[in-house]
Structure formats: C-alpha cells, structure tokens
C-alpha cells in the first residue's frame, strides 16, 4: 500500500526554485532513503510532506488522501534541527508532544515509561533534558518521534550524535518498526546506513530528481564491468581486458563488451593462477552519490 505520494511538487523562494517537479512515493513495510547533498531540497521536501510549508505546485497525498490536520497524527517526524523543552522533565515533554499527536495523556505516559525502559533511560525519566548527555537527548528525541505509533516515520539524520552502541539500538528499532508494517523515510548523508537499511531510495540534487528506485537495481545500473582480483603471480595479458594495479595486493581488471567475468575466471584458472579473491566490482552508494552529486556541482 502506498503511504506517501509526492506528485510534481515544486517550491520556490523568490527567484530560487528549491524543489522542482519532484515525484516519488513510499509503501508500507519499507525503509525509503531520501538522499542528496547539502542544500539539495531534502528538508523542504520533508516539510512539504509534513504540511509545515505548502508547495507552490503539485500535490502531496497521505494514504491516498489530501493532507489534513487529522493525518498529522499518522506521521512521526524527527527533524535534523532538533531540541526539546530544556526545563521540563523528560517524561512530561514526551507525554505533552504525544498528546498533541492525539494520544491520551495516560496512554502516552504508559508508552513513554515502556520505551524509556527499553532504551535503559527509565532512571532519568524525571530529569530535565538539559541534565542529559547529548546522546541521551538524541535517543529521547527519537522516542518522541515514534511514541504515538505513527504509520509513517520520517527521520532526518537520525544517527547524528549517537555512539556506535546507540546507533545499533536505533537501527534495530527502525527495523522492528518496518517489520510492524510502518513506512520509514530516512534522510541522511551516511550512505553506508542507507545501503544497510533502505529498500528504495530517492536522490535529489539542486531540487531535482536524479535517482529513484530499488537500491539493488540502482547499484547494478551503476555497476562498472570490472573485476577486483587478488592472486599469486602475474595473470599476464588477456585479450579484451585492461589491468590496473590498485594497491600492492589488488588488481582492477576492466572488461570490454566481448568478455564476461565468468570467461575471465575460466581463463585465469586455465593459466593456473592461484586466486585469493575474485570479486565482480559493484559501486557503493557512496561512489554513486559522489559521482552524481560531485558531477553536477
């Protein structure tokens, strides 16, 4: 089922078009990556999805409906620029913000206590946010986003300021939420995390779509026809193959259209080369990101 549909959305500030005819959609039980370089228009897209700002053209639909105030409770949003009431006890802030999302105070309190226990912050529940470490505050902020059990969760740079242990914990929770059937929209610069978590991605640069689709399909689209080889001895010249040394142990073998990796492997075996590693080179999302974002700057 489609959860968020963004259709031909445009936003202009003065003479600057920040988002230009952008379209994408997300589904339930999916982690969707919204990626792009700084100033690409990601946050503006998210704010338009959240109805915080209105698009100049195009339409945003949630669960097939035009956005209404009532639908806000179906979304949880963790903005990149984040903060909480510094002087209020943590649990009170959590309850207040959840009630604004339509939960009853009693239900919100119960959920808040349960989540605090899950993330081992139960002992801090009556502390003020200013008394917590930066990482703890980030966790609380994440809990505020999911406390009211939204069907769509938008996370803008959710791993910022977290240590590896907390990053793992947040990732586990995100994967659990996905398994429960929720949509998670992940906006981040950390391409390794997008690769690890996302099913599909949408890449935006200078307000325009540059990539959209299934992550594996995109990666295979950008796959270079080359092989990474670590072997003992010199493989020698092979017709249709250019050999380049990447470092002391690894060679990159670029294949022209007439030879496949399978044929190359057979040739090497026939030459009795002892192979330690033979890997069809797949570009990382980071490489693709740098290639696209860097190329268009």
């Amino acid at each position: 089922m489609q959860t968020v549909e963004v259709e031909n959305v445009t936003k202009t500030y003065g003479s600057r078009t920040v988002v230009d005819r952008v379209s994408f959609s997300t589904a339930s039980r999916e982690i969707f990556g919204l990626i792009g370089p700084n100033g690409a228009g990601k946050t503006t897209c998210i704010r338009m999805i959240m109805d915080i700002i209105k698009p100049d053209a195009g339409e945003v639909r949630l669960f097939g409906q035009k956005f209404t105030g009532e639908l806000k409770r179906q979304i949880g949003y963790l903005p990149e620029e984040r903060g909480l009431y510094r002087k209020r006890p943590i649990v009170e802030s959590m309850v207040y913000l959840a009630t604004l999302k339509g939960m009853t105070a009693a239900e919100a309190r119960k959920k808040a206590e349960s989540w605090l226990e899950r993330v081992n912050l139960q002992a801090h529940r009556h502390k003020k946010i200013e008394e917590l470490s930066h990482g703890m505050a980030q966790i609380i902020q994440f809990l505020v986003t999911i406390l009211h059990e939204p069907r769509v969760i938008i996370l803008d740079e959710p791993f910022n300021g977290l240590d590896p242990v907390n990053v793992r914990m947040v990732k586990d929770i995100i994967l659990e939420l996905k398994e429960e059937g929720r949509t998670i929209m992940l906006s981040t610069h950390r391409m390794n995390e997008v690769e690890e978590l996302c099913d599909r991605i949408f890449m935006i640069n200078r307000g325009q779509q540059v990539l959209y689709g299934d992550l594996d399909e995109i990666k295979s689209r950008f796959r270079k026809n080359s092989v990474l080889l670590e072997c003992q001895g010199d493989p020698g010249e092979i017709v249709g193959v250019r050999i380049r040394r990447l470092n002391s142990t690894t060679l990159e073998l670029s294949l022209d259209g007439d030879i496949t990796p399978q044929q190359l492997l057979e040739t090497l075996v026939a030459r009795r080369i002892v192979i330690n590693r033979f890997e069809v080179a797949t570009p990382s999302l980071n490489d693709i990101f740098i290639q696209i974002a860097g190329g268009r700057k």
Partner: protein
Amino acid sequence: MNKTILILKSELITTLKRKGFFITTLAIPLLGLLAILIFHLVSNLTQSTPAETIRIGYVDQTGIFTQYTAQGNIELVPYSTPEEAKAALLAKDIRDYLVIPQDYLAGGFITRYSLKTDIEVPSGIRSAISSFLVSNLLRDKVDPAVASRIMYPLALASFTLDQSGHVVEGRGGYGTWLISYLFSILLLISIFTASGYLLQGLSEEKENRIMEILLSSVSTRELITGKVLGLGIAGLVQMVIWLLYFWGLLHLASGSIGGIFSGLQFPPSVMVLGVIYFILGYFLYAILMAGTGAIAPTVREGQQMSVFFSLLAAIPYFLITLILEGGDSLVNIVLTILPFTSPLTVMMRLWAGVPAWELGVSIAVLMLSIYGFLLLAARVFRIYLLMYGKTPSWREIIRSLRQA
C-alpha cells in the same frame, strides 16, 4: 482533546507555575499593603511622640520683630548681636540663625546662617519664618482675621459636576492622579508580563529547535492561538487579582489614611473597562510580540526587538500630566484612539471620565488593529518560524511579507 486547548492548557499551567509570575502577582498587592502598614507605623509614631521643638535664632536690627516667636514646633529666639547668635549656633543651642538687617523693609533681604548644608531651606522652617515676619509686620495694622487670610488666602475645594449638574463624588485631587498612575502601571505590567512570556516562549522554542516538532503536530494557527489564549488567561488572572486587591486596598487606604484617598470611589466601570482594555491591549501586544518572537533567532534578540513596543505602549506615561489635565483635548482624543496608546490612556483618564464616543471609537480601532496585525503576523509566522540564523533587516522583512 482539541490541540489548541492542549497548547492553551500547557502554556497556562507553565506560566502559573513560573516563580516570576507568582512573585509578581503577589508582590504588587503585598507592596501596597506594606506601604499602608508603613504609613500607619510612621503616623502612629509621629502622633505618639510630640514634634521636637526647633530653635531658630534671629538678630532683629529693625526692632519690628518682637512677637509671634512661637510658630508651631519652631521657636524663634532673639539675640542682640550676630556674634551672640553665632556662639549659640556653634554651641548647638539653635539650629540656624537669621540676621534681619536695618533696611529689611526696603529690600526684604534676610541672611541665614546654619551648620547644616541644605539644598534649600526646609519648607517647614521657611513657612514658620514667613508667618513670623508677616504676623509682626501686620501687627496692630489689620484685623487678626484679615492677617490670617493674608497668610493663608486659599483653601480651595474643587467639585466636578456631571451633565445634570450633580456633584460627582471621588474625582480630582492627588488621590485620583495617584490611582490613575498606579492603575495604568498595573495594566501595563500585566499586558507586558503575559505578552513577554509569549515572546520568550516562542523565541525559546525557536532557539531550542522545538518549533519544527510542534509544527509537525499542529498548525501555525493552532499553535499561536493556544499560546495567545493560554498566556492571556494567565495575564487576566493576574489582572483580576490585582483589581480585587486594589479595590480592597483602596477601601483600607481611604479608611485608614484618609487625606488624598478619602472619598475616592472605585466605580465598577473601572473594573469592567480595565478588563476590556487588558484583553484588547494584551491581544494587540501579544500578536506583535509573537511576530517578533517568530522573526528573532534567539530569546535575547527577541527581547531587544520588543523594547520598541514597550516604549510605544509607555508613551502615555511621558504625557501623564498633559493627559490628566487635558480633559477632552486633542492630545487626549488622539492617544485614546491610537491602538498602541489607548489601553493606558483610557486607564489614566477613566477616573476623570472619558466620553462614551471616544471609548467606542477606541475599542473599535483596537479591534480592527488586532485583526490587521493578526493577518500580518500569520504571514510572518509562515516565513520566519522555521528560519534560523541571522536576524533579518526591516527591508528583508518587508520584502518577504510582500512576496508571501
């Protein structure tokens, strides 16, 4: 529960729990009570201990000033020569001494010598010396009653008549002036306490980056309405508490102090109009403060920017004498109708009476201004509530408002 009501409730509870709000609300009436208590103590003390006699020496070189040397608690002590008087002064037998020269009648010059450095001669001593001089000068020349009138020719009792010619009780005098002044101060404090919290709250939420989270849950309209109403109710609670205290204090004061407060009324119209002008004044300044809070990137900058509105509202203070003595002057009419100055001006003028048409126009203009500024503020919120970083210039604000 409606989100506006949730925000209203949260703002109201947070404000009522603020130490500053609690202290201000209770401190002002307590200060009033304290003032009355101190007045009581001082007056009891002065009544129970007879006034100390002050001895003023004098050397009369004219030979005229021989009688009426007892002037209340001041006793004029004659000396034959300035040296004698000086010796008495140095021996602290007398406080000061005067030398009345032979040609006094020609020029009226008298020389005073004292060990104390006064900015000017204390009024009690000056008045006693005048009385001593006049009494001696008129001695045996006019009837004592006439002499007394020459010294105190005016005991003025003023009355204000209404349109039907009946005396209106409780108007005029220093009591009215003082009450007008105090009452308008209370109104101003109350308006700016509540709208100041609004400014601070919005700026804090912007500075702490909670704004975006709030706006992902509620609309800008719900957020601002909830905040304005929540803080408005807190301010109204404060204003009503002060009005009730004030009413009680006035009764206490007129009973115990008398004097300038005696007979002064606290008409219900003052209470009703006080509440009306608080509500309208608060809404006007709350909207302006909210707009400022949306524009300012930090609490501190927000407070700096809001000084302009505080000064605007305080204009009637600078013109208080003009307003209280002005009646239906043009200045009073303009200040009563101008939305920024009307709440204070009306509070100042109310005790002396404001024509109904002026009140009607003033309330209508205030309401229209509130509506106009609300529309403008809505644009400001849309543009600036999520804009962080530097404070925009006036030119940038105007340009972005035009484009919005």
